[in-house]
């Protein structure tokens, strides 16, 4: 039983806006690439409310696309009540996808001149 959604896509890995933001946020958390930090970063700096469920779903989706991977770390702080954490990492393909998105965006932003200022 496999549908298109269930099958991991290999090439090319296209990402949506929120996926791109999540990838960027993971990359920004140099020393603490954990979901809570990623979420906080997004909420504080991308000026949007990010629900925990949406973030987990996106992470699952990105992992299916092969753009994100994680490993499970045992918790060593009492705040987590002994529950483990996911240490997130952007894969090589993930980095490539981010790079591709940046190129596309820059191409489209480039040459707009003052078009954005008049609106």
């Amino acid at each position: 039983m496999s549908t298109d959604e269930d099958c991991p896509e290999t090439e090319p890995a296209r990402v949506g806006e929120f996926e791109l933001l999540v990838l960027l946020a993971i990359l920004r958390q140099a020393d603490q690439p954990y979901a809570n930090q990623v979420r906080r970063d997004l909420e504080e700096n991308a000026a949007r409310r990010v629900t925990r469920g949406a973030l987990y779903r996106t992470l699952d989706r990105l992992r299916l696309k092969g753009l994100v991977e994680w490993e499970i770390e045992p918790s060593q702080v009492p705040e987590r009540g002994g529950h483990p954490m996911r240490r997130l990492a952007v894969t090589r393909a993930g980095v490539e996808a981010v790079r591709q998105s940046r190129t596309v965006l820059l191409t489209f932003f480039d040459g707009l001149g003052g078009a954005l200022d008049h609106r």
Partner: protein
Amino acid sequence: MSRDPGRRRLPSGRPASDVPRPPRLSEAVVSLLLGGGETRHVALGDLREDYVRQVDLRGAFAARWWYRLEALDLCLQMAWNPFRTADPPASLRRGGAADRQLEGATTMDWIEALSPRGLGHDLRSALRAVRRDPKLLAFATVITGVGIGATTAVFSVLQPLLIEPLPFEEPERLVWIANVDGDGGGLSSVTSRTGNLRDFRAMTDSFDGLSGWFAFFERSPHTLSGDGEPETLIGVDVAHDLLAVLGVDPVIGRHFRPDEARSPDGDVVILSHDFWERRFGGDEGIVGRTVTIDDRPQVVVGVLPAEFDFSSVFTPNTRVDFLCPFPIDDSTDAWGNTLHIVGRLADDATVESAQADLDRVVAALAEADPRRWGLGGEITPLRERISGPYRPALVLLAASAAVMMLIVCANLANYLLARGARRVPEISLRSTLGASRGRIVRQLVLESLLLALCGSLLGGVLAAVATRWIAQTSAISIPMLSSVSVNGTTLVFCLFVAALVGLLVGVAPASHLVGRRPALAAHASVRGASSGRSARGLRETLVVAEVALACVLLVFGGLLLESFQRVSRTDLGFDAEGVVAWRIRTPARLQGADDVESFHRELIEAVASSPGVSSVALTDDLPLGGNRSWGIAVPGVVQDEPINAFVHLVDAAYLDTLEIPLAEGRPFTAGDDRESAPVAIVNQSLASRLYDGSALGRELRFGHGVFEVVGVAADVLHQSAEQESGLQVYLPLSQLAEPPGQVEMVVRSTLPPSSLVPQVRATIVSVDPTLPSDEHQTLASRIDRASSPRRFTLTLLAAFAAIAVLLASLGIYGVLSHSVIERSREIGIRMALGEARRRVVARLVLRTALLALVGVLLGAAATVPLSRLVSNLLFGIHSSDPGVLATTAAILVLVAVVAALFPALRAARTDCAVVLRRT
């Protein structure tokens, strides 16, 4: 991927004991809904960590609400997460609680399985899978069909009697008022005097209406003449307001008016719906027309609605063709206890308050007239009165049907488990291709739902056939059976059972399959289908459960069978073999007792002279019915309480024809006529209760008449084979001043009924062509009908038990067959190492016998708490009868051994060379 946990900044560094704890319930809900996997642990950790932050920022109260909303949001979002994968790659996991690999499906998998996404696709896949395996389709359809059919049929019988409201307006307000007058008086001790009804109507405050009908209406059939063939009709004499009290309106026409109930021979009738359709073709112009009943014109004033079948509700197995008004006055009060009373409680009254009210009225009436007899009233809800006696049997049947359904489920689940082992590679492949566990589970459950749906189609047909038979048969005397049918509610029930079966049998194998480790799947694909020790254990457990359930049914079936046999073996006190009874209505043209007597004599002589007839007699009341009793007394003896005796008006040949032995004295003779002194024959119970020493020559008083006892007859079980004979008195028909309106002519013959009946019918017609000659019954069929509710229960339970044993044996066969195939390598190696074939067979059979024995022990233990289901239905046997238990155990173990023998013999034929080469 770089990793350095040591550099991680800790949120607060506070000691563990100071860490605030989030709301436990919300945490438990998250924990439950997210299942047992990695996501749950990580999410709970993330939530806790943020919660602690929220406490620091906003305080404990706000933080708790924050946690609850966050948890809710998380659960809602994750419930439909289509991207969740089964397990993280093994290479990425290490240590701790998170390292647990999921076993079985998680709650979230089930939630995902319930989402509508991709349902069409999964449904098509399930259809293909079911179509690919016609053997499974046939097996599942047949066993679930039989199970669902039986369950639905039982539900159909239960529905009108126990579930649906009675076919009256606000039926919960209807009550039955039984008289309690003397002991052992049969129908006469629960019916009331019309004077009581009149006084209750006037003096009680708890009823919106009180009404009743003449309980002995069956004794006076009527003849319809005029257009078409003469026909014998049964009419019920009812108080004019009975239909109003019950809340039944005629479908056409009107109710009776009070002035129409002035005499027992009124001139208006309301037709039953059946009779109206049968005789008058449903002619709506019937109201106002005149029909001739008993040679008197009667005006039809209304027709009863189809949904109110008087006989089906109140007098099962008796046809009722019309209602006629019955006067509630002094003339009928003098007849004694003859009335069934029903009432409609006032809005604010309860059964208890109405009973208190009635007790007050009864006490006041008794005080006002201390000599008044036949006064009393016990209120029961009408439903309780109608369905109460049948409730234990019906509840037992429902429980048995449910047990049988469980066996069906266990069997099918077993089959699916065995089949599941062959599908491990397929499931693993799908999982590898990215199908989530929720989707896999859903497809497997859809397959079993489809199978159950096929079964429900067959079950629906079987239930329709069964209910059709039940509704039409006259062999079963249970109320409301004529309205039994497969209707919308039954079909919904049928589909509900199918869905339940589909889920029950699908979930366990599906959950088992998706929890398998990839390594096992890989192993399975290489070694061939092997379900492993856990699946074998599960399947053996299911077999033990099947045997245990079958044991419960078999024990109950055995107890009922033994009870039935004991009832059948009961000496009724007369010999019913070879006796046929005809109802002979006294022709209206005959006037006076002498005319009637000579007519009877002529008829008896004509029938007695027919070939094969050994004796002919007359009685007004056949055994196992009627239940009319009269109050009796012994002149000169003061009684503390009224004594009732069943009275039979018989001719001189009656005791001899029914072979009722005389213990003392003489039978009636031709000399006992209206000119001679009144005589009576009493039964032994009455003789020993009322007289010291011999009863012969002693006197007996009925009302104002005094009779001399000339004989003492053996006791006859007059009411039923399961009730004491009670006190009985036989009076000679030849001494009656008023001849009865009808008699029963009993004919003993050596001929079979099929030969005797046409011969006697021809004789009756030759004596009087106007006499209906088709109302006859064998006494054997009367006995059968008296025990029909017991036989009905027994037949169904026996069928359930037989199916249960068959299914259990199929289950054992299936499990062992599969086990033999699965373990062919092991068996081959054992045989190669020198194990004898005989030993292989013995080992396999012994293990099966052991499983069966465990099942039997569990089943036997289960019958102890369940025995109250059956104890009310037993006769002369205890619910823990060791004989029945031992027989059941022997049958089940034997069946198990036989079922195991075939696969075991097949295993013994294993060619070890071939097996070893494959290895």
